[in-house]
């Protein structure tokens, strides 16, 4: 049963649309902003409206369990956190000016910016921070989104009106980075009665602290933001920032081509050449803190042998996957730390497992798998055959088909079981009833990947393969235990090397995001668009 109609349509239309785009490219496009002689604008100017697409109606509350990806962009503009991702992705001041950790590492103290006001004029205080954590995030019965990231936080204490202290049950060096990731502070004076399901807030005009505030929320159509005159920082340049609900990625492309959108993520990478040739649009590639992986369930004894995991990663032509599925926008991954985290990323690992079916065959042979009838590998008379569950989303279907072909070449038979996304999550993630599956992780801009690898998260947490390894656990805890950058770099270098050796997940590739921007839109930092949203106040439109 295919309930995921939009993704189905997306896939089926992509080919047709590219053909249609080629035709429309021949007709001379009447592009707004096609003027070739822009007036010499040196510095930023105020005014104008920027429109960007989102896939569905957003929920304007970063902690709501219903705040999905479409909500993330707008919530990062509206709700400031204590920190935000800096332009180098390291945590930078936002509502907090500075932060320090206690010598025992069991608490963090944040000095808040003074004179900050909510968009309704009420002063922002330390009570709002304590409310957001103590009464929302740390309340188990509310089930707040991202709550699992704060398992180490016991409570938040108000030291004085502009100081808060996070008390921890264990060391948590990455806390300032995590607070920069979908951790907006909510107004106590508005939400104390009902923090997560007040619909006049979540689906209306919330009270917020960011450079823009909501002017109008029209269900199914758009959310319009206007400049927040109470914003503590430099006033936003743009008069308006409009998020328009456009569910179909192909319609997003068409809207960008007709000049209706000024900035967007190009989900349909097949359209990239058409976008590049369009007047008035520029196309840029941005790094993401994201990686694709293949998880082999460690409850299956065939996959506990590291040689089998190394053989698989050697047998899969990952460069070919990046080329055909991502059109080259990505690089091979051999660890969970992505190139976007430049301070930590170890580039020497990139060439660790070159595509080599012969070597893969040797490794499998060493693990006891020898060719039987029809070239299928077998051990103890049983063929090497298993099922991979495929969630219908993004590029997962073509990727799985390529992996299936690659493994077949070394004598491993993979059956693909394609499933509607929601059912897939239930089977593979909630129940862990799977043998192998491909997916991806996106995580805060910090190398602390504890939740995805620690043995305590096996089986029920985010440790999807259920890999358990005391040495890896130790590295993960060490990384959380020191706040010193150089010491952390050393720990995470070891962690990259170790994970690339033992392959808890089979690392596939680090994707890049393709962003399409109007050439008149300036001041957007060179970050993935999700992170660039934190800087929406700095965006400006050059006058034509």
């Amino acid at each position, binding site marked *: 049963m295919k309930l995921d109609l939009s993704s189905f349509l997306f896939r089926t*239309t992509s080919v047709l649309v590219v053909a249609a785009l080629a035709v429309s490219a021949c007709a001379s496009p009447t592009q707004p902003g096609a003027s070739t002689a822009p007036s010499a604008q040196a510095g930023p100017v105020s005014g104008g409206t920027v429109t960007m697409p989102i896939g569905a*109606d957003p929920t304007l509350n970063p902690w709501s*369990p219903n705040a999905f990806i479409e909500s993330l962009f707008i919530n990062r503009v509206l709700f400031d956190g204590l920190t935000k991702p800096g332009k180098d992705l390291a945590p930078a001041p936002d509502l907090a000016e500075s932060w320090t950790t206690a010598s025992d590492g069991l608490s963090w103290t944040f000095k808040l910016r003074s004179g900050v006001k909510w968009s309704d004029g009420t002063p922002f205080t330390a009570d709002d921070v304590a409310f957001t954590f103590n009464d929302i995030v740390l309340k188990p019965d509310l089930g707040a989104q991202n709550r699992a990231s704060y398992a180490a936080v016991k409570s938040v204490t108000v030291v004085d009106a502009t100081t808060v202290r996070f008390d921890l049950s264990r060391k948590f060096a990455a806390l300032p980075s995590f607070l920069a990731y979908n951790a907006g502070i909510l107004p106590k004076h508005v939400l104390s009665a009902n923090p997560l399901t007040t619909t006049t807030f979540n689906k209306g005009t919330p009270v917020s602290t960011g450079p823009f505030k909501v002017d109008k929320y029209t269900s199914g159509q758009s959310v319009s933001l206007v400049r927040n005159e109470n914003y503590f920082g430099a006033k936003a340049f743009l008069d308006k920032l409009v998020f328009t609900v456009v569910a179909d990625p192909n319609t997003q492309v068409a*809207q960008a081509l007709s000049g209706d959108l000024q900035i967007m993520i190009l989900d349909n990478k097949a359209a990239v050449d058409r976008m590049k040739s369009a007047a008035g649009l520029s196309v840029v590639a941005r790094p993401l803190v994201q990686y694709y992986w293949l998880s082999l369930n460690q409850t299956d004894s065939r996959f506990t042998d590291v040689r089998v995991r190394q053989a698989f990663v050697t047998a899969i032509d990952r460069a070919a996957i990046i080329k055909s599925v991502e059109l080259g926008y990505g690089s091979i991954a051999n660890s969970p730390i992505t190139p976007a985290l430049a301070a930590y990323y170890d580039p020497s690992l990139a060439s660790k497992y070159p595509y080599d079916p012969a070597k893969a065959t040797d490794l499998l042979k060493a693990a006891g798998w020898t060719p039987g009838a029809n070239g299928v590998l077998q051990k103890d008379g049983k063929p090497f055959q298993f099922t991979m569950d495929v969630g219908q989303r993004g590029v997962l279907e073509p990727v799985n088909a390529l992996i299936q072909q690659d493994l077949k070449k070394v004598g491993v038979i993979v059956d693909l079981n394609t499933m509607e996304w929601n059912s897939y999550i239930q089977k593979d993630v909630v129940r862990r009833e799977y043998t192998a599956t491909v997916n991806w992780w996106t995580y805060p801009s910090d190398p602390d990947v504890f939740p995805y690898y620690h043995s305590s998260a096996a089986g029920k947490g985010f440790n999807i393969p259920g890999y358990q390894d005391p040495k890896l656990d130790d590295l993960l805890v060490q990384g959380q235990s020191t706040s010193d950058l150089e010491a952390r770099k050393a720990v995470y270098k070891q962690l990259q090397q170790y994970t690339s050796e033992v392959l808890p997940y089979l690392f596939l590739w680090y994707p890049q995001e393709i962003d399409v921007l109007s050439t008149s839109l300036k001041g957007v930092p060179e970050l993935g668009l999700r992170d660039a949203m934190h800087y929406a106040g700095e965006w400006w439109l050059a006058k034509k």
Partner: protein
Amino acid sequence: MVVGQEVARFLFQRIASGALVIVFASALTFFFVNLAPGGPSSIMRFDVSAEQREALIKRMGLDKPVVERYADWAAGAIRGDLGTSLLSDEPVTQRIGERLPNTLMLAGAALVVSILIGIPIGLIQALRRGSALDHLLSFYSAIGLAVPVFWLGIVLILVFAVSLGWLPSAGVTTISEDTLVERLRHLALPTVALATTTLPTIVRFMRSAALEVLDEDYIRTAASKGLAPRVVVTRHALRNALIPVVSAVGALVPRLLGGTVVTESVFSWPGMGRLALEAAQGRDYPLITGITVVVAGIAVATTLLVDLAYTRIDPRLRAS
């Protein structure tokens, strides 16, 4: 008056059976979507821990048996409360109320366009049966039925919005300038896309109904007694040929409401079709059930109206 009593009894019977249909549809939908694998999006996401999942299941009341949940929902529905959307925490009636007018406008426009164009074309084809024109128009009808709406929609956008820049590509109106003219401009492309799916049906029904009627004795009589061909066609043939067409229109209405799903997605039209899709994908049990009830209600009401329309067109049916 005897006739008045009979009409009242007829209406009562029809409304009672319609209500039964709606109750049956709601129960069927509720149990089937609950039986479907998966669960509400808030718990079926990668980055939710087992503990969060449990808290949310409890908060949404999903730990109760399905039968009990349906009973609770039905008790509310009788009072006009269709429950609370699991995806947005808003009342289901409010969410449907926001979207239904847009869908009715789009489906209504497509239906009107289909009728206004389809009836004359079908009639012309019948009158020119076997001619080159008849074959050409039949060919176009076949294309109309065969072309997928999502593709046609994108092509319309690329031609009229991107290349020519005549019409807007998506949405119901311009945010900055919400006027009637803007609304009509936004309505144009989705109406054409959606009407393409219904127009051929009306053309084909009209053509075959008109062919049948034109062979009738009374048409030959009318023509042979010297009536102008125009009078024969409009006064005698058209009226009788319309009867099956009216029933086809009645059957098209529920199909149109379903057919808007794709059109609404392509044109970012904030209608109920897209809402239904989101509700199904996100396992928003109360919302999908509420939408089913509303669509079933519209289908029941249309059938009733079609039956009443019959009796206007064909006096013979008034007696039976």
